[in-house]
């Protein structure tokens, strides 16, 4: 089993290790999470032009002044959505890493990273 030791030459007691099998499992989980968020992102962004084609109210009605729901979402709402999605995804990814990595005491072959 490959294993990565960090910082050969670093102060004693600070070396960190990742076992290959735990990294494989963590990467698989991260991929699933990223694909899930990616799907939400794609659906949200494609829903705007699809609603424009299918729902006259979406572009024809006025929410405030001359702004239709479509205009409000494209000119501002989507940026807020991107940020919220980013914060949620980054938080979850970090907690998955904290839970799944850095726990192995496996002593198989290891080599320093660059």
């Amino acid at each position, binding site marked *: *089993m*490959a*294993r*990565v*030791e*960090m*910082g050969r030459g*670093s*102060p004693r007691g*600070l*070396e*960190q*290790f*990742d076992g*290959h099998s735990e*990294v*494989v499992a*963590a*990467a698989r989980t*991260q*991929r699933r999470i*990223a694909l899930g*968020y*990616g799907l939400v*992102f794609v659906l949200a*962004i*494609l829903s705007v*032009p699809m609603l*424009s*084609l299918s729902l006259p109210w979406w*572009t024809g009605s*006025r929410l*405030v*002044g*001359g*702004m*239709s729901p*479509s*205009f409000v979402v*494209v*000119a*501002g709402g*989507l*940026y*807020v959505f*991107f*940020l919220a*999605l*980013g*914060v949620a*995804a*980054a938080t979850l*990814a*970090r907690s998955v*890493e904290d839970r799944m*990595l*850095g726990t192995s005491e496996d002593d198989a072959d290891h*080599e320093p*990273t*660059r």
Partner: protein
Amino acid sequence: MSGTDTASLAVFALVATLVSVVAWRHTRATTVDFFLAGRRTGMITNAGAICGDYLSAASFLGVAGAVYASGLDGIWYATGFAAGFVPVLLFVAAPLRRLGTVSLPDFLAVRFDSAQVRVAAVVSVELVILSYLVPQAVGSGLTWELLVGQGIAGLSPYVTGIVVSTVAVGGIVVIGGMRGTTWNQALQFGFLLAVVVWLSALLWAGGFSYPAAVEQASAEPLQAVVSDRLVGVTNQLSGESARFGAPGARYGPIGQVALLVTLVLGTAGLPHVMNRYFTAVTGRAARATTVWVLGLAGSFYALAVLLGTAARVMVAGRAEEPWLAELTVDGVLRVPEHALLVLGRLLAGTPGLAVVSAAAFAAMVSTIGGLLLAAAASFGHDVVARIWRPSASPRVAVVAGRGAGIVVSVLAAVVAISVEPERLVATFPSVIATMVTWAFALAGSALTPAVLLGIWWRDATARGAVAGIWTGAIIAVGALVVGLVIGPDPSDGLSAVLLAPAMIAAPISAVTIVVVSRLDTGPSVRPRVWTRMHGTAADRQTERMAQITLRGRR
């Protein structure tokens, strides 16, 4: 050029030079120091620098210009540019940094353990950089033309702008390296954001109402200037006259999806933006940096859209003023990219124009700086130090990189000088944003599929990656050439896809990687590469050392 114009440009040049000189004094002639700023760039500084790198002339002048020209459809440029960072955050940022490489080709070469992958990636990267540099240079020429209006040494104002920006940025990159470029980009983004906030504040102070402006702009059918006369813009969805606040002024359904896919996929393959992630302290920091980028870039684009809307209303209302009459035909700007510059003058007089022009130069300079540095890294590190002369010292790689930066900037300037923007405007209403889209298309087609599959699919092999990169690049370049030859103002259908070809080229590239990798009997990813890319040992160690250092200081 007024005294204010001269002063604003002089202050801008002085600050950029000072920052570069200070950075030069802190930079050693090593690969990590010159190309990666020692991998010690803080999160917020890096987020600012990424925004400075990313928000080019296409964003600063182009987005407002696209909104001015096409209303709601123009806003999709801003949406696509901002959306591109979501896939970067989800799929790319952390693993990209964790592998510990120097450039995008270096990342792909280490992941696939292949010199052929490195060569294919370097060629694609240089193509992307060149096609991204040209619209920045065009933007420099247009801004100089409007701000200064005079050439130097017998050159036209347009050519003078290109030459001045090329020489200035070449100097900044060669002197300051990644550290100087980082500091300049972060400062320049701060300046850009301050300028759009300032213009928005001036609007509101003057009683501007965003909803009322959209209503006013949508009251009359959209018109554009073509060959010095006004023509009505046709709605691509209904066939009727297009309106500012309604979809269809620029794109049909296929055209809009093609643009979005190209911008979203392209970001993850842009070498100058991805190179910034290698300067982050850890993979976690790279991911968190992207969250900051989403917030900062989103704020910038939302305000740029507002300013484009304001320009549509205000320019028409004051078109009788002599200086503006020269730039308009019956109240409509001849070049939509002038929208923000004109708005600056309308809101704050000549000083307003000077400040917006300085910001436009800052946008171009910071992006050109990032592009030249990416060109330098891929040539100096990947070509010279890894392929041509593996025994060369880091100093040789740095010198070669500096030389490559100069050559690429001159090449882009020559191409930009041969472009006639006013002729192109007749074909592409928002010429800078459109040209930048072509670079996104190349990046999204050739590089992004290999990056994504390399990070997340262990069975992707070097032969698969090489086949995918070349396939994506060839299809994208071929589609763009054919599209430019056959398609005047493509809004929908085949022509629109040809000029934003990532929608077809990226899937074909990805399928090629999968099929060739499946058929390939060669090795898949090495376990230690996978462990390094997806593990957090390096992150944890860096964080612990930082904690200990902080405790020691207390």
